């Protein structure tokens, strides 16, 4: 039985007899399953989703709990991790179209109806197409000419060069700039919003100050007069009061256990939520919608 299955699913390099038939059969088979799901009564849909959710989680749960062979530290499910990785990558990647479709829909509509700001939509579409086309050209034939040379004016531009222009010049720099903007807002918030009105706010402030002082040379310079070693070559206990050492102690002795407390709290929450997702016990707008 297993052998027949293996034979059936075996790869067919060179596209031997039945390759295209098997492709069609595979598609047909999956669409038949989808059709059957669609025909199932409406009230069964929640159960179907719950079943597939459970199936998705069952592999790792079983792989973890099933006793392993002590020599190889594996069980019969372990070798399939690679298949799971491939399936998750491919199926997950099909979702890329969701983002593309909704953005394209939005911007082509703006453009077609000449709504205010349609010029920006045109710019969006031009750069989207340019990146897609030159990116693919770069991947398939990086050396192909895109813009021929004009003697004395510019050199020949190949697909790789254009891709570099868009990716290094455009995408990476614009990405960094977008996130750098927040620096300005933090400075303004420090001045306008950070009011020390309670014990809690004071504690937060003190911690932030010590961490800031402890991590830059301007701060460490303040206490650099306390030498780490005494005249007789032994360790100086007062060196603990150097600002970088105070900061270090606070990080290790106060921040660490506090973060561990948070970690335990979060873990309990994560375990509970994961189980609820897995067993479809989760409630909320998304999960209780009529299907």
């Amino acid at each position, binding site marked *: 039985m297993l052998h027949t299955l293996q034979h059936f699913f075996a790869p*067919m390099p*060179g*596209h031997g007899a039945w390759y295209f038939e098997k*492709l069609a059969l*595979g598609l047909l088979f*999956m669409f038949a399953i*989808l059709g059957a799901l*669609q025909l199932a009564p409406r009230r069964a849909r929640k159960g179907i*989703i719950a079943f597939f*959710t459970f199936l998705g989680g069952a592999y790792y749960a079983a792989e*973890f709990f099933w006793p392993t062979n002590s020599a190889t530290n594996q069980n019969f499910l372990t070798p399939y991790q690679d298949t799971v990785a491939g399936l998750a990558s491919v*199926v997950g*990647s*099909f*979702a890329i*179209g969701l*983002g593309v*479709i909704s*953005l394209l829909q939005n911007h082509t509509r703006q453009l077609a109806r000449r709504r205010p*700001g349609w010029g920006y939509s045109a*710019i969006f*579409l031009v*750069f*989207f*197409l340019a990146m*897609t086309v030159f990116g693919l050209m770069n*991947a398939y034939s990086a050396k192909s000419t895109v813009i021929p040379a004009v003697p004395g004016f510019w050199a020949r531009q190949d697909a790789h060069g254009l891709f*570099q*222009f868009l990716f290094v*010049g*455009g995408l990476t*720099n*614009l990405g*960094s*700039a977008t*996130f*750098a*903007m*927040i*620096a*300005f807002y*933090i400075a303004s918030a*420090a001045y306008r919003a950070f009011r020390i009105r309670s014990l*809690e706010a004071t*504690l*937060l402030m003190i*911690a*932030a100050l*010590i961490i800031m002082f402890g991590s830059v040379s301007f701060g460490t310079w303040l206490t650099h007069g306390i030498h780490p070693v005494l005249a007789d070559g*032994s*360790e100086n206990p007062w060196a603990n009061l150097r600002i970088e050492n105070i900061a270090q102690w606070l990080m290790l002795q106060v921040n*660490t*256990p506090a973060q*561990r*407390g*948070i970690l*335990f709290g979060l873990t309990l929450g994560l375990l509970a939520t*994961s189980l609820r997702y*897995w067993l479809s016990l989760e409630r909320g707008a998304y999960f209780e919608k009529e*299907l």
Partner: protein
Amino acid sequence: MEYIRHLFNPILLFGALGTMAILSLVFKENRFYRVFEHVFLGLALGYDLEFTWTTILRPLFWDAMVRDGQWAWVMTVPVGLMFYGIYTQRFTWMSRVVFGIFFGLNAGAVFQDFAGRVVPQVTKSFLPSKSLIPPPPIPGDPHALLHQISFVLNNFLFLGIVVSVLVYFLFAFEQKNKAVLRTAQIGRWVLMFAFGAIFGSTIMTRMALLIDRMYFIFHDWLRLVKG
């Protein structure tokens, strides 16, 4: 002349103009910003599409199915199509099936995550032999006693903080017991301290990103900053 040509290097010029355009938003909403905002969106989406094809779908799906003849990959297409059910009323529920599979995949891995990542945290915190008995003094250490005392004090403090934060979390609902309330209050203060540490380092991250942009403009592009 060399310098002028450098200033007009397309990659640097694109990056510099884009950076200035994006940062100009903080001073005033303007068209220069809006143009580059849309350039960024277009590039990002195009890159994601191209990259997903080139690195995932082409080698794992297309090449495997067409070149290597692993025909069974074709069966992933209908599964992938289920995502697109959200665009129709009739099939929208189908997208939930495939989202469910991914929810399940992540949820099922939680047991191993707990065993591998969190259990060492628990044992380190609550095994007294690991935290409350000081290690033997190093021979010739003039401050041996001081070191041992500080070891024990530090670890008591550590344990106390873990417990108080946990109490704060676990008894977040209405509580009447005075001891629990006080412990939770301490937990709250310590948490504020931890958040302060995060706030301090947030400033570092955000400023580093802006410093990097300035370095790009004045060092890489304008070459006014040396070294």
